[in-house]
């Protein structure tokens, strides 16, 4: 096995330390302004990356992030793992029993909140591909990607907002949470199919990809979950706690990620579905969930969010019109779609609007989606920057807009 040299090890450690430090500082600042930590972490990356540090002090940026290819490779491995773990906890957050209990209104809100932004996100790029910056490749695939990128709600951001507003346990809060969960699952299903086409390993036909994806999903949510229900009590009883649970769940998360990657649908999908199955199992205690969350949210998530800013220059790739267009489309799609879905399920007008604003928060998932598309050459850096800005803007405005719409007199 090859190993890093002395100075490469130092470089890698300095990189990690710089990333975690700046992420913490900016996350704290973001929270002082009542903003999600994610916003601060992404800003930390922009500050540490070519956009700001690279401009002010190119030497220190080059020394830190561009002097050792091997250290960078190692860092990339760590960031890859962070993405897989992020998807794992995204899956863990999905609680199917809650979705079933909310029933029709959750399905209504999430489907309308998925279809409308998807259609808008698909149509505009399809007819104006050059404006949106189609890099090279398929126009349909590109538009499909854009549609999906507009339609996944950021569950953690929404939960935070609802908790802050003391709305979490209300009917509205539960419907929003359940809606966002359904959104997550369907969004990733669609995206994994798109991915298998742009990936290098995509040698399956459309039908068999869809078939395998669906089959794998159903398997994980029925038999996979049943298996977990049998194994988990044994693990909790006989192995170290929470050590046994933590290391084994990570191991199986990576194992299934490897399996889906091998199948030709991206690794993150396996991690996500394993998260869903594990989170929905009867024997994973809430305490264990909290521990898994804490350790991924505070160590791996910041590394990933900071790494985005390191890769791209947000200043030179900033196209104001494109950013505005993406923001307008994403706002319109989500608010109209989810709001209409809520109206149809019998919510009052102002509550429906609040639900629309709540579902409008985008975050980590759009960014991960965008990054994969960028790596696969489906989109260019300018569009990626616009997507990140969109995620930031929707996350930051979601809470204040919800408050505003609920404060209005009933309409």
């Amino acid at each position, binding site marked *: 096995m090859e190993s890093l040299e002395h100075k490469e090890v130092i470089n890698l450690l300095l990189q990690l330390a710089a990333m975690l430090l700046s992420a913490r500082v900016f996350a704290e600042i973001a929270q002082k302004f009542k903003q999600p930590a994610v916003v601060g972490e992404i800003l930390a990356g922009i500050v540490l990356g070519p956009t700001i540090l690279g401009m002010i002090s190119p030497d220190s940026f080059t020394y830190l992030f561009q002097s050792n290819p091997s250290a960078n490779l190692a860092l990339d491995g760590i960031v890859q793992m962070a993405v897989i773990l992020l998807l794992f906890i995204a899956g863990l957050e999905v609680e199917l*029993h809650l979705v079933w209990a909310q*029933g029709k209104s959750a399905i209504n809100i999430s489907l309308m909140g998925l279809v409308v932004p998807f259609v808008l996100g698909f149509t505009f790029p399809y007819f104006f591909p050059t404006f949106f910056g189609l890099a090279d490749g398929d126009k349909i695939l590109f538009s499909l990607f854009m549609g999906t990128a507009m339609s996944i709600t950021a569950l953690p951001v929404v939960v935070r907002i609802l908790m802050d507003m003391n709305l979490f346990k209300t009917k509205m809060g539960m419907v929003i949470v359940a809606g966002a969960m359904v959104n997550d699952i369907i969004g990733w299903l669609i995206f994994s199919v798109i991915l298998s086409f742009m990936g290098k390993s995509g040698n399956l036909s459309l039908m068999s990809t869809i078939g395998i994806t669906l089959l794998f999903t159903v398997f994980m949510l029925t038999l996979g979950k049943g298996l977990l229900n049998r194994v988990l009590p044994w693990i909790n009883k006989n192995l170290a706690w929470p050590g046994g649970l933590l290391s084994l769940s990570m191991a199986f998360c990576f194992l299934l990620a490897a399996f889906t990657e091998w199948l030709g649908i991206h690794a993150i999908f396996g991690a996500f579905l394993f998260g869903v199955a594990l989170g929905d199992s009867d024997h994973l205690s809430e305490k*264990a969930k909290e521990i898994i*969350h*804490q350790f991924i949210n505070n160590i791996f998530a910041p590394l990933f969010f900071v790494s985005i800013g390191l890769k791209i220059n947000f200043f030179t790739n900033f196209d104001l019109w494109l950013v505005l267009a993406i923001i307008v489309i994403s706002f319109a799609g989500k608010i109209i779609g989810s709001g209409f879905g809520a109206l149809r399920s019998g919510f009052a007008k102002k509550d429906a609007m609040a639900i629309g604003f709540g579902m409008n928060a985008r975050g980590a998932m759009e960014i991960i989606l965008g990054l994969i598309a960028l790596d696969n050459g489906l989109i260019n850096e300018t569009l990626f920057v616009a997507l990140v800005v969109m995620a930031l803007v929707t996350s930051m405005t979601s809470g204040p807009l919800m408050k505003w719409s609920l404060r209005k007199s009933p309409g």
Partner: protein
Amino acid sequence: MYQKIALAIAFSPRMEALIAEAKRLIEIFESELVLIHVGLKQPELEAKLSEILEAKGLKTTPVKTIWKEGKPAKMILQACEEEKVDLLMLGALKKEGIFTYYLGSVARKVIRKAHCSVLTLIDPQATPTKFSKVVINGTQLEVTPKVIAQGLKFCQAEGAQQIHILNEIKLYGLQMATAGEGSEDEVNLTRRKLVQDEIKYVQEILDGLDQSGLKINIKVTAGKWAIELVRYCEAINADILVMGDEHGYTFIDRLFPHDLEEILSDLPCNLLIVK
């Protein structure tokens, strides 16, 4: 509380015990008893039934027996509607075989579809004892205030000693992970607030109710409420679990069990569904 109690009978070995249990309840609630049997009315069965009723000392009280032919679950429900029954009693197996579970057993079908309250007994006794340890589902649902109110009345009539009302914190792990963005004090504050909110919810329902003679314990858990209820009932060896029913369930709900279905798949103790 219950003017008319019906008992579904099937001439199984457990029938005598079930009738004994029913007798105990009609005496407590001073109600009429209706027996429902789905199957052909045969003289030998009638003779056997009247023999048991006599042995149980039910010959003197008016007991109406209804004989129906057709699909058991459907006929039992129909008879309950016709007789305007307030509480339907029936025996149920603790756990069904996998095929019966998915295709639907009579007891579970009745629980899912009945319009009146249903009491299922998993272990009826020939010499019945009273339900002393009662667990009431206090999770935040639309029916919960009604369930707690009816549950308390039932316990008062029954003279139950210890009542546990279980409420759970929804998505505790996720909420705490989100709260983890704050400082240590904020996190602890959130943790306390989450627990207190749930106690307050139950307490506010209880405040409007007559609690005389009852020892009530409010317990807060985290996780899925149905699973937590089952675990708690098993842990304290509860005699009866009182809960409500939210809506009609379909086959999909059995495939992805949640809420009531999760309890039906493995009954921890006797079950009273308040409707």
